[in-house]
């Protein structure tokens, strides 16, 4: 049997997470096919992913809604025994639906794959790790992509074109609002600068320059988002995006369990906070206690000076 990997893209290019999901697939010693629901260009890019057998390509402008995509996955699983994807909003929407249609369980957000049907996944906002075995003949799995090693490129494998969908869905997507940003994508950034409610109205004026000097993505706590200081799509945590960058700079955020769930796998955590007792200092590798409105600009300035000296 073989693995079917649901690729993710932004319309033009593969998302970096897909390379990591292909990396995760090597935990099984099975051939892996990558499903691209999107443009020719993305299918061609996917064909060069190292270690895969072939690309299955369904040409379409926008990814179909779950109601329509799930039956396609079910159809393709006649030929595969593992359905694998990143733990993204797309996969979290469609994979459970496909799993139920297949009458199998789904393993969500696996952080380790320890056997052909054995996984480790977080529960309780990452406060516990569960070692879970599945008894189903078909495995449906999402993985926490940042924790797996990405694959590089290789000579292109064949692309098999799939017949167009019949358009049976009763659901219509009537608007899509993707935030475009010059900054790296939060989910795959090497460095993330993240802020909490304590930054208030100065969230952007303080953090955007710091993020820019570091070439970092911006993130935020739910409290900062709910208070209107940061945009929705920046939310890191149990209910937002899970990140594991090389460096996570936590600014003015206390470190609630729900937030830690989204960033505690980061390599290095740096915390800046005015409260020396903030729980974030318990998980931080480096901590700086100080007034945010003075400290953050000082850090930004110091980095710029360093960069100018090195230039």
């Amino acid at each position: 049997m073989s693995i079917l990997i649901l690729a993710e893209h932004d319309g033009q290019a593969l998302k970096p997470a897909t390379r990591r999901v292909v990396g995760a697939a090597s935990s099984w010693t099975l051939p892996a096919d990558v499903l691209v629901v999107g443009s020719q260009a993305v299918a061609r890019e996917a064909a060069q992913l190292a270690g895969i057998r072939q690309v299955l390509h369904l040409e379409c402008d926008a990814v179909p809604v779950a109601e329509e995509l799930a039956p396609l996955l079910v159809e393709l699983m006649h030929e595969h025994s593992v359905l694998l994807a990143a733990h993204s909003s797309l996969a979290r929407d469609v994979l459970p639906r496909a799993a139920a249609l297949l009458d199998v369980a789904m393993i969500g957000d696996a952080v380790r794959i320890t056997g052909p049907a054995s996984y480790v996944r977080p529960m309780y906002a990452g406060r516990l790790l569960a070692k879970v075995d599945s008894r189903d003949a078909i495995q449906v799995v999402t993985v926490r992509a940042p924790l797996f090693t990405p694959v590089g490129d290789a000579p292109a494998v064949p692309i098999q074109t799939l017949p167009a969908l019949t358009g049976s869905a009763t659901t219509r997507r009537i608007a899509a609002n993707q935030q475009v940003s010059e900054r790296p994508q939060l989910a795959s950034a090497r460095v993330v600068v993240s802020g909490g409610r304590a930054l208030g109205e100065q969230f952007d004026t303080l953090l955007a320059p710091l993020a820019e000097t570091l070439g970092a993505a911006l993130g935020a706590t739910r409290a900062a988002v709910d208070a209107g200081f940061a945009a929705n799509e920046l939310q890191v945590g149990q209910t937002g995006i899970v990140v594991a960058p090389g460096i996570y700079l936590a600014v003015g955020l206390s470190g609630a369990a729900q937030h830690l769930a989204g960033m505690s796998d980061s390599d290095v955590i740096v915390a800046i906070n005015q409260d020396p007792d903030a729980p974030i200092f318990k998980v931080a590798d480096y901590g700086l206690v100080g007034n945010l409105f003075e400290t953050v600009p000082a850090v930004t300035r110091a980095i710029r000076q360093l960069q100018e000296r090195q230039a």
Partner: protein
Amino acid sequence: MKILVAIKRVLDANVPVRIRADGLDVEISGARMSINPFDEVALEEAVRLKECGSASEVLAVALGAAVNQDILRHALALGADRAVQVEAPAGLQPLGVAKLLQAVVAREQPDLVLIGKQAVDDDAGQEGQMLAALLGWPQATFVSALQIENQALQAVREVDGGTETLALPLPAVVTADLRLNEPRFIKLPSLMLARKKPIEALSADALGVDLAPRLSVKALSEPPARGAGRLVADAAELVECLQIEGRRLEIKELS
């Protein structure tokens, strides 16, 4: 229009999580339990839809042991018209729950099922999608705004990098993000009244649903604690540390 809201009883999000002595589950005996916060948001939305005239009846459903009655009382106090307790064995898994809810939907014939997008205990986030699949209904997941007009839904979903808006016909399944609303504070008189309302009982056996577990938990553990870090004196020292870690990061990526 009738709305069914499925609610789950979970360890209160603010109490410490302790592993049971056998290492296979979480110790909940004696611990404070509450309604899953996402389900409470779903319930609040259903009650608001009724208050604005879009819905005529709100039914709250809980699965599991009889102790679930406390969250059903909470649901009645918040504004649900009826509460149904489906007696079921402990250790239900998402697919089994979806099958039980499918059986309840077949009996109750709701036009809309509202449910939290995830439960804060297992963080699975699969229930609404699995139920929609089994029912063959359309779904809108991670919803942060909801409108109903002419027997159709318009739902704003939170997706990676932004939002999207779906239009879907009823019946449908909607899963609630925390941002959908802020549940009301329940006043004491409502709680007192809710105590007198009946809770209907069903049993999983009578519904004839296959609840065989598909997953088995082999062990629970706490994630390795991060080593104690160090406090730096000022911005300059912090930037030095960042520089060292930045270099280490580059070396790691090259290797």
